[in-house]
């Protein structure tokens, strides 16, 4: 194999060729500022509105409920900080979970420093929120619940409809970070009782630096980025026309192929999971076996460390990711893996494989064979494995 095997689609996806082609005219020819009055720019305004419809359609929303942002992170920040401020007179309590993306967690931590109270719901060993926990956490002062639709590390999908219904019954606004879910699993903001929803372009074969926030009609939400009158005065800044057009195109394609593609990827995923669990000892699958993104597999290999594993895979031209502390540059391994109760040293040896449209069964086989060799090699080098073997030997004696 001398071609890269990219298995890190949860980190980012390539922008599809057709998407780039759709964007290109808006850089050099139809480059006008959509706020301008001349006809030359009018077409850009239309292009934006077309993209808005495509985004709305993907989640069962109305296009007037879609606001473009610079990405998933901005969408999360806007939703949480905006609601926190707009509904301050109602209360200062926010509920989220321990396994959210940092875009949500760090925003909540910022709010905690500014007079808000945040409850971080724990999840079960598979990464799911217990709806009863949510019910019990809601107080008089609760103004917002923010629970991600699907987790970016372990792929666990939440019982979002049930959680949304609880929020609705309690009269509390419900935000969901759907960055990893859109284009992979069906979403309907009405059926799921979602009031605010974050999307990102580059996770669904669109460009980076573009995203959207869905805001249910009637919800007060202050501007997060103040400026010109763009996005119905809710988000200042010259519209990123090429990226918006590309985002629209990408989400349209993702929705069109979703059913077939997620089935295909889920089959590859299941094959991978089965083979790895069967052929590599001292290994576990993280995340829910069933309620999981079709393209996600996350393993922990005991006695080995994630960064080393990634580098060895990289040497075999395989791109993947890990929740190891050594990768993150912080001392603690992934908060998600700790959140599902893994001990530190097991969380260290984690590997996330996230599949994409180009991946094949052959690549899975190559990955599996490579993993078997690499894991064995790293265990040979591991003092932890040595200790384990010695202990085993003692027990057997």
């Amino acid at each position, binding site marked *: 194999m001398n071609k890269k095997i990219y298995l890190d689609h949860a980190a980012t996806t390539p922008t599809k060729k057709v998407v780039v082609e759709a964007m290109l005219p808006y850089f050099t020819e139809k480059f006008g500022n959509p706020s301008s009055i001349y006809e030359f720019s009018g077409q850009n305004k239309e292009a934006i509105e077309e993209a808005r419809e495509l985004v709305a359609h993907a989640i069962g929303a109305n296009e007037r409920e879609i606001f473009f942002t610079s990405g998933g992170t901005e969408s999360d920040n806007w939703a949480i900080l905006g609601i926190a401020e707009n509904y301050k007179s109602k209360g200062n309590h926010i509920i989220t979970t321990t396994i959210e993306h940092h875009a949500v967690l760090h925003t909540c931590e910022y709010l905690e420093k500014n007079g808000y109270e945040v409850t971080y719901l724990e999840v079960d060993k598979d990464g799911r929120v217990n709806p009863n926990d949510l019910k019990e956490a809601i107080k008089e002062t609760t103004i917002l619940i923010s629970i991600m639709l699907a987790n970016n590390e372990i792929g666990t999908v939440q019982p979002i409809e049930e959680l949304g219904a609880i929020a609705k019954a309690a009269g509390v606004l419900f935000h969901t970070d759907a960055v990893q879910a859109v284009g992979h699993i069906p979403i309907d903001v009405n059926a799921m009782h979602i009031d605010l929803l974050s999307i990102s372009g580059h996770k669904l074969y669109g460009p980076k630096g573009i995203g959207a926030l869905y805001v249910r009609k009637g919800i007060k939400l202050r501007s997060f980025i103040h400026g010109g009158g763009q996005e119905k005065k809710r988000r200042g800044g010259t519209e990123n026309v090429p990226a918006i057009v590309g985002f629209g195109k990408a989400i349209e394609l993702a929705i069109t192929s979703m059913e077939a593609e997620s089935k295909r990827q889920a089959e590859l995923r299941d094959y991978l999971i089965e083979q790895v669990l069967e052929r590599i000892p001292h290994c576990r699958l993280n995340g829910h076996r069933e309620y999981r993104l079709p393209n996600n597999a996350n393993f922990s290999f005991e006695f080995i*460390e994630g960064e*080393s594993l990634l*580098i060895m895979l990289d040497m075999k031209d395989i791109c993947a990711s890990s929740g190891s*502390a*050594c*990768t993150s540059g912080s001392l603690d391994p992934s908060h998600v893996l700790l959140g599902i109760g893994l001990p*530190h040293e097991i969380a*260290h040896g984690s590997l996330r494989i996230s599949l994409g449209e180009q991946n094949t069964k052959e690549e899975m086989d190559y990955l599996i064979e490579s993993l078997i060799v690499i894991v064995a090699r790293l265990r040979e080098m591991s003092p*932890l494995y040595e200790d384990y073997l010695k202990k085993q030997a003692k027990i057997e004696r």
Partner: protein
Amino acid sequence: MYTKKVMDHFQNPRNMGEIEGASGVGTVGNAKCGDIMRIYLDIEDEIIKDVKFKTFGCGAAVATSSMATELVKGKTVKEAMEVTNKAVMEALDGLPRAKVHCSLLAEEALQAALWDYAKKNGIVIEGLVEPKPFEEHEEEEEEF
């Protein structure tokens, strides 16, 4: 991210393994932050005849342990005392800033092995201080 030398030592670690009945063994690190390093020394007449290591850690941790063993092999105990993390990093053409702590581990593991050797033989090595006791892997698990 890593230099060519680091990658070389990661891909082809020198002196990886264990020594049965070693003159000194040092294990340092803590499973909680992910770094565990063990160095085995075989010392005869104050000369390090053989050295082996095992490491649970990142690319930098593996490479620094490999390099550290190379730097001390065949050297006297006194010379080995001069193999600091700085020396190891220099020999590897540098490490990313976030990975400097991994090279400290190599220095500590080496000194822990030397301490073990000194203790077993009832000798004193100038400048050597007692390493922090290593928290056993099992204890970590119980704590959880």
